[in-house]
Structures are given as C-alpha cells and as structure tokens.
C-alpha cells in the first residue's frame, strides 16, 4: 500500500460521494421498484374517483428516497481498507481490508451506460448473502471504475504485483481464451433458464391482471372460437414452446453477448452482456477449480457449460461463469486452458462399482414403484379406467432410464493435482477441485450405505458450492483418495478404521 503509483487509492483517501450523475439513476430506479405499488395506488385512486393530486404525490416519494440515497452514501479507501458508509435512518458502515479483496466486478446496466457510469462490486470471502453486506460502489465514472479495479487487484498480495501491473499497463500479456459465437444461442432453449423466464413473466402478468381486476371479466363461454378443444390445447402448447424458446434465446443473447474470457498474468478477465455489461476479474490464486455442467438436454445437443469454483464467490454468483452453454469441445478446451491441464475434464473416471450402481437403481426406482403401486390400488378400489395407469408406468420406466444414466455418470479421479468427481443425470456435473484448495474432508454414510460398504466423500472448499461430492464411493477407496490427495491429514483416520 506504500505504492506511490497507486494514485487512484491516494485520491480516494477522503470520504466522498459517488458520481453526481447517480442523482438521475437512483430516482428512476426507485420509481421502478415502487412501480407495482404506484400502479396499485393509481388504480385505487381512479376507482374511488377524484383525489387526482394524491396519485402524483405518490411518485414523489421514491424520487425523494433516490435523492437521499445519493446524499447518504459515501466511501473512502484509506489505511489499507475500503470503507462504505450509507443509510439515512439506519447508518451502515462496511469496511474491509484491501488484502482480502478477492474479486472485483464492474457492472453497468443500460441506464448506467447511457450516463457513462459503472458499478464496482468488491467481493471478499464473506459467506453472508445479505444484500446490505455487499460492498457495492454503485455509480462511478466508467473509466475510474476500471482504474479502481486494476488498483484493487494489484494491491491484493496474492497476485504477483509487479507482473500483474506490467500486463495491465502495456496489455501485451493478454491472451483471449474464449470469444462469443452468436450461433451458440441455439443451445439456449435446452437450458432451464427459458422456462424460468417464461414462468416469471407468466406469474408477473397474472398478478398484474389480477391487480387490475381483470379476472372476473374473463368468461370461459366467450372462448368458443369454433374449434375443438384439443386443437386449442395443441395450439396453446405449441405457442408456449415457441414462446419459451424465443424468450430463452433472447435471454441468452442479452446476458452473454460479446462474451470474452481472457487472461493477463495474474488474473482472468470476463466480460459479457448486451444491455447490461459485466466485467469480472478473478485472481489466479483464487481459482480453485472448475465445474462442467452437462444437463441431459445439453448433452443430447453435444453442449456443456463451465463455471469456475472461486474462493470467496458463492455458487449463486453469476460472475463465476467461464463459458455459457456452448459446444462441448469448445468448453472443455476452455477448461483445459484455465486449469493449464486437460486431464481433469478429459481423463477417464474410475467407476464406483456394482454396489453403488445397485444403490442408484434402488433409489430411483423405489419412489416410482411406490407411486405405481398406490396408483394401481386406487384405480382398483375406485374402479377407474386402466388408462390412468399409463402416467405412473411411464414414470417408472423413466426412473429406470435415469438410474442407468446415473450409473454411467458416476465416477471420480485424482489427476494432476485435481480431485475430479462426476455424478447426476438430468443435471450431470463434473467438478474438478485443486487439491490445495481442499480445506477439509467429510465422510458421510447412512446405515444403508454402511451395509453396502459405501460412503460419500465430500471435499469442502471456500468457493462455488462450498464442496465437491464424490457420491457412494467404496469406503476403502474413499480413504485412499483422501490420503492420496492430502497425505499428511488422513493418517489418523486409517488407524481408526
């Protein structure tokens, strides 16, 4: 921190406000946040008749709040700490040492970009998920945000400061690993995000209609358009599928447009987004491993996605995405470049043996079989049509197929200093975690598992989903794996077996 060239940090020693242009951003955003309430007020006002001025006063409240938000938020970077002070009634002071800064995100939404602003989100290793606890400097001029990011990351001792500075200054150290190809959007409908967006829109729309009192006016008798019901259902279903596909492709393009992954000495840089742009830097030292997601639908299309396991970044953080859904060989190529070795994502895995396979089948089939038996009992008792059994029967068959796929997926390996584990079917995931980022082991076994001689080995870590699970591995193999990975640790465990 004695670095004389860190002029950004020196300049920020005094308490200061964010960029004044935020005076435009905050009120607009607050109005947006209060929009449902405002609409409700408006509707209620019109319904009860008169009192027109009150409805417009309602708009003033969020605007005032937005202005206050600007005047009550200050930050400074001094004495090796970043400090953020905010709040009107509840004063909130956040403070973190500079050497605990792990990631720095620069995000700009559409309105930020119009005004040339950016939000700097400083990520530390906190496990807190409360949005009040996040260190967001919302609204700095874009170039200053980038400068601040560079400075913050250089100060962190984990990066080789001299080397990193060199790379950033002349830009020669940068190598681009992945560049976006719009053709990849064809994989978007195969992910679940489209369905989520559709559900969200549907829910929001329904609520809005409800709020406006539209539902009582809907009358099913008006719906007879002179076509049979099943045609109507088919058209609706087809429309829904097309709608979801369009929405998911749009969502994919919006978030991943211009996706770019590059490496400068010391850290990885990600940038993406069409309207809201997002730039993330991840320290080399903090990159603990990668997680290769291959849901069933993506696997059918020969695609996969990749995210990083980063110390201090939770799994919910979308900033850890290393590759959006893209062709599988592209994604594994990226994984190989990121980890500096291809084996964690390419090498064959050791299967977990017949006992684990039996367990997969019994766990998948037992619930489906129970449903089937209950369904048969109900149908017999109530004298309903046997056709009703088609659904539970199909469910049971699907369960067997899924179990077979799970058996195929199950596996683990220890290669090139990475613990690799793969499991799952509908949402198959292959995780590779660097051995020196393993911060503990857990062996978990239920009575059933102990009888089958199996145990679930969990390697805990400080990033991503907090752990990598090796499911149902034979007990002796689990202990061996843990010992091979961290020899000095598990000695006592073997003795106790």
């Amino acid at each position, binding site marked *: 921190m004695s670095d004389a060239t860190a002029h950004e940090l020196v300049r920020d020693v005094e308490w200061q406000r964010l960029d004044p242009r935020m005076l435009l951003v905050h009120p607009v955003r607050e109005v947006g946040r209060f929009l449902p309430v405002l609409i409700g007020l408006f509707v209620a006002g019109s319904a009860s008749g008169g009192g027109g001025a009150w409805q417009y006063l309602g708009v003033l409240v969020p605007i005032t709040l937005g202005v206050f938000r600007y005047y009550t938020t200050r930050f400074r970077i001094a004495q090796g700490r970043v400090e953020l002070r905010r709040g009107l009634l509840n004063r909130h002071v956040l403070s973190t040492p500079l050497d*605990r800064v792990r990631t720095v995100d620069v995000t700009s939404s559409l309105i930020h970009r119009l005004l040339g602003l950016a939000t700097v989100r400083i990520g530390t*290793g906190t*496990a807190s998920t409360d949005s009040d606890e996040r260190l967001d400097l919302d609204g700095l001029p874009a170039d200053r945000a980038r400068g601040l990011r560079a400075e913050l990351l250089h100060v962190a001792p984990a990066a080789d400061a001299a080397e990193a500075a060199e790379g950033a200054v002349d830009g020669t150290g940068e190598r681009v690993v992945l560049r976006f190809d719009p053709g990849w959007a064809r994989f978007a409908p195969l992910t679940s995000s489209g369905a989520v967006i559709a559900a969200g829109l549907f829910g929001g729309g329904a609520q809005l209609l409800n709020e406006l009192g539209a539902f009582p006016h809907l009358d099913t008798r008006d719906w007879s358009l002179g076509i049979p019901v099943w045609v109507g259902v088919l058209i609706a279903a087809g429309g829904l599928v097309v709608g979801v596909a369009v929405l998911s492709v749009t969502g994919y393009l919006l978030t991943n447009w211009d996706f770019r992954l590059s490496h400068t000495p010391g850290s990885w840089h990600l940038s993406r987004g069409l309207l809201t742009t997002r730039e993330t830097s991840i320290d080399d030292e903090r990159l603990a491993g990668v997680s290769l997601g291959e849901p069933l639908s993506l696997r059918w299309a020969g695609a996969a996605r990749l995210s990083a396991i980063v*110390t*201090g970044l939770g799994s919910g953080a979308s900033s850890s995405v290393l590759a959006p859904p893209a062709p599988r060989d592209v994604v594994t190529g990226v994984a190989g470049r990121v980890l500096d070795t291809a084996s964690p994502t390419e090498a064959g895995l050791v299967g977990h043996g017949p006992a684990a396979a039996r367990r997969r089948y019994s766990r998948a089939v037992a619930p489906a079989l129970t449903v089937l038996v209950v369904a048969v009992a109900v149908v017999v008792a109530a004298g309903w049509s046997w056709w009703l059994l088609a659904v539970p029967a199909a469910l049971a068959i699907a369960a067997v197929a899924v179990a077979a796929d799970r058996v195929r997926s199950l596996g683990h390996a220890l290669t090139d200093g990475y613990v690799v584990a793969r499991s799952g079917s509908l949402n198959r995931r292959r995780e590779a975690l660097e051995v020196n*980022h393993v*911060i*503990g*082991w*857990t*062996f*978990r*076994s*239920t*009575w059933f598992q*102990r009888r089958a001689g199996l145990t679930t080995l*969990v390697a*805990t*870590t*400080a990033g991503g989903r*907090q*752990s990598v699970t090796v499911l149902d591995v034979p007990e002796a193999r689990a202990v061996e794996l*843990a010992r091979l990975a*961290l020899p*000095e*640790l*598990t000695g*006592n*465990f073997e003795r*106790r077996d």
Partner: protein
Amino acid sequence: MWLVGCLAEGLVLIAILVAVTLAWDWPSTRWWLVGAAAVLVLAYAAIVPRWRYLVHRWEVSDTAVYTQTGWWARERRIAPMSRIQTVDYAEGALSRLFGLATVTVTTASAAGALRIEGLDRALAQQLVDDLTLKADAVEGDAT
C-alpha cells in the same frame, strides 16, 4: 444431555398433538394416535441418544481436527489446522444444567463446520485455547 433433549422434544410433540386433538374436537377414539406417538417417542429416546453416544468421537492432532457424529447417517469430518477460521464455544440452556459445552470449529467453507457437542466445560475451554493457539501459529488466510 441428549436423552433429556430427546424427552423434552418428545413431550412438546405430544403436547402439540394433545392440543390439536382437543382443539379439533375429535371423538375420543383418536386418543390411540396420541398413545402411539408417545410409544414412538419413548423408543426414540431410549435408543437414539445411546446410539449417538457410541458413535460420537473427536480428536485433535497437531495438524488437524477430527470428528465423528450422527447415528443413522454417520459423518466424519476432518479440518486441517491450517484452514481453521474460527473456534466457537457455546453453552446451551440444557447443557449448562449438566455443566457441558459445545465447541464449533469452522473453516472458510460453509459446508465444513465441525461441532463437538457435550464436552465437559473445563475440557471444552481448554480445547478452545489450544485450538486457537495452534490455528494462530499457522501462516496464511486459511482459504
């Protein structure tokens, strides 16, 4: 401690059942349900705490902390000394009655906390001091 804890939980459950039965004004034939619940609770209280006691182990070496917990699902956890972030000492209302304490050792991972329950108070305090010193002696920020 676990025995008492179990019994207390069971009593609460039964009390709730009784209250619900009374409140809904069921015919008195439903009392057999309450009786069955009481039998289950007693069986649970008789077996599980003892089973738990047999399973639970802990050990602290120079390099790591080990625990073994659970009854039906058994869990063993290892945390290297170098990765320990905080050492918690807690006395619940119940455990204070018995002069016991719980020591929780957390690492930087949300999935990796080690709980050592039902330690003698003096031993627990000594363990906390010991762990704090040992964890402090290791360099790095424990991630």
